[in-house]
């Protein structure tokens, strides 16, 4: 079961600007998907197409198995836009009541929801007097109304202090645990890394790579070895190890037999193995590599 399915999805704007180029993507239900990419990569365009805010030039996108134009589909989606406009003269419960009514919800637990996003005790204050972080929390509460099956969050922790970010992250993890699918667009890669189990990297409108975070992190055929002090660097280099520094080396090996042969040669030179693991990249490295690949 897929929560989001895009098939050769393209969007061009007036003037020939191609914001999204034949993007094909599937996000399974229950996944926490992080969409990353530099500014102008097409992330927001994809979200807009996903929610029917903009319409594709070609291709198709399905949300929870339905067209984004279908209000039934949108009823099961919670969305937090990047720059949410909030009515300054209203108080939080009134705003949430209005959104609940537009979502067709009755008796939504507004106070509990405000508590969940860290806004308990401000029900009587007008939104106009809220800080950016408080506004963001209120927007998040609006997105969470009705326990949506798909949560689309565009920069959800923007303007929120570090402690608040942890709270929001926990909240998103709770939602994931509930079974909701998360689609996160954040420029904070660490945040994406902590919340998401799958990522997609967009560059110049194209989906450069996508998959589980684990699979993307792993660099194919490269292993990292940590050796005890007292090794002879020249002999190790001759055995096929590349020094990284601090007693760490990398090895290129096509399979386990080859890897073991290299390790045997190193041990024969007197080196003592402390740790062996496949080499992994962080999200920043991943993005950098993907962008390089995309540029080629």
């Amino acid at each position, binding site marked *: 079961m897929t929560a989001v399915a895009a098939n050769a999805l393209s969007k061009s704007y007036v003037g020939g600007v191609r914001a999204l180029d034949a993007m094909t993507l599937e996000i399974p239900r229950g996944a926490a998907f992080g969409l990353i990419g530099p500014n102008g990569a097409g992330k927001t365009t994809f979200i807009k197409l996903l*929610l029917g805010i903009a319409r594709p030039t070609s291709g198709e996108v399905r949300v929870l198995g339905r067209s984004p134009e279908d209000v039934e589909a949108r009823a099961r989606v919670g969305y937090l836009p990047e720059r949410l406009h909030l009515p300054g003269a209203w108080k939080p419960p009134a705003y949430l009541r209005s959104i609940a009514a*537009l979502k067709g919800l009755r008796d939504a637990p507004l106070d509990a929801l405000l508590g969940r996003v860290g806004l308990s005790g401000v029900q009587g204050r007008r939104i106009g007097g809220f800080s950016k972080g408080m506004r963001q929390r209120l927007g998040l509460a609006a997105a969470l109304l009705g326990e949506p099956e798909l949560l689309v969050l565009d920069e959800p922790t923007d303007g929120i202090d570090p402690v608040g970010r942890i709270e929001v992250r926990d909240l998103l993890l709770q939602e994931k645990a509930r079974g909701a699918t998360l689609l996160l667009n954040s420029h904070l890669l660490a945040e994406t890394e902590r919340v998401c189990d799958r990522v997609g990297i967009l560059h110049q409108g194209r989906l450069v790579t996508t998959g589980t975070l684990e699979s993307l992190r792993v660099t194919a055929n490269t292993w990292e070895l940590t050796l005890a002090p007292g090794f002879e660097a020249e002999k190790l280099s001759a055995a096929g190890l590349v020094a990284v520094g601090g007693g760490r080396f990398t090895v290129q090996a096509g399979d386990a037999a080859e890897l073991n042969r290299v390790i045997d040669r190193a041990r024969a030179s007197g080196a003592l193995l402390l740790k062996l693991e496949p080499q992994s990249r962080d999200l920043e490295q991943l993005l950098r590599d993907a962008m390089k690949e995309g540029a080629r």
Partner: protein
Amino acid sequence: MLKLLQVALDLIREAAWRKWFLGLFLTVTLVLVLLGLSLQLDVVDGAIAGSTLFGEVLFEEIRTVTSALSPLFMAVTVAASMGGALFLSVACSDFAPSLLSPGRIEHLLSLPVTRAQLLLGTWLGGVAVAAIATAYGTLGLIVLLGAKTGVWNFALFGGALVGVLVFATVFAAMMLAAVAVRSAAFCAAVGLATVVLGIVSSNRAAIARAIDPGLGRRIFEWAMVPVPKLGTLAVRAALISGHRLPDAAELLRLIGGAGLFSAGLLLVALFVFERKDF
């Protein structure tokens, strides 16, 4: 339908906090209070035996309340219909552009609400704001003069209703302007222009006669064909308020013309809105 009403209700709630509307309600209240304190009516068995305003004698003769007050009711209706439409064109000019503002429209479109509901709800909300302001003023005037004379002229509500239709037409044009170009200034300009065109259209035959026969006159005549006669409608509203029932068939044609014009503009606005990406 409920969602459409919710959109309208949200707009009314938002408008209630705007300085424009607080000012409008304050002004209406102030005028009513001033009138209540200053207008002295000498009433005898349902007739008015004399009247003073701010101590100045308006008239001393005795006439029936209806005939004495109907010029007042009629003047108020025309002033409220046309003046109100002009005022509200400016005061409501950012309703639709605000609906379409970045950060708001994306959020609204992500909700299970159709674009038609958003557009029509906003239009309905704007018209409801005008109707509430009109009803407030109308009720105030009826109560004020009713308390002073013992005669309750509920016909003023009929006139007010037709008067609100004038603004409903103007606001439909403003909605179309907003979805085409998201600018409050442009919206206000279109609103004001619609009021003026509505008056010009009401006098189209006389104005056409004043234009030299030829292409210019023909262009004018053709341009005026779809424009409803808002000036005539305001005058007919005044007649209703003043207990002088206008010709029903003509009134229905005028109301129908304005109503269909509004519906047509809203459909064009919907066509543009549905095609638009945000």
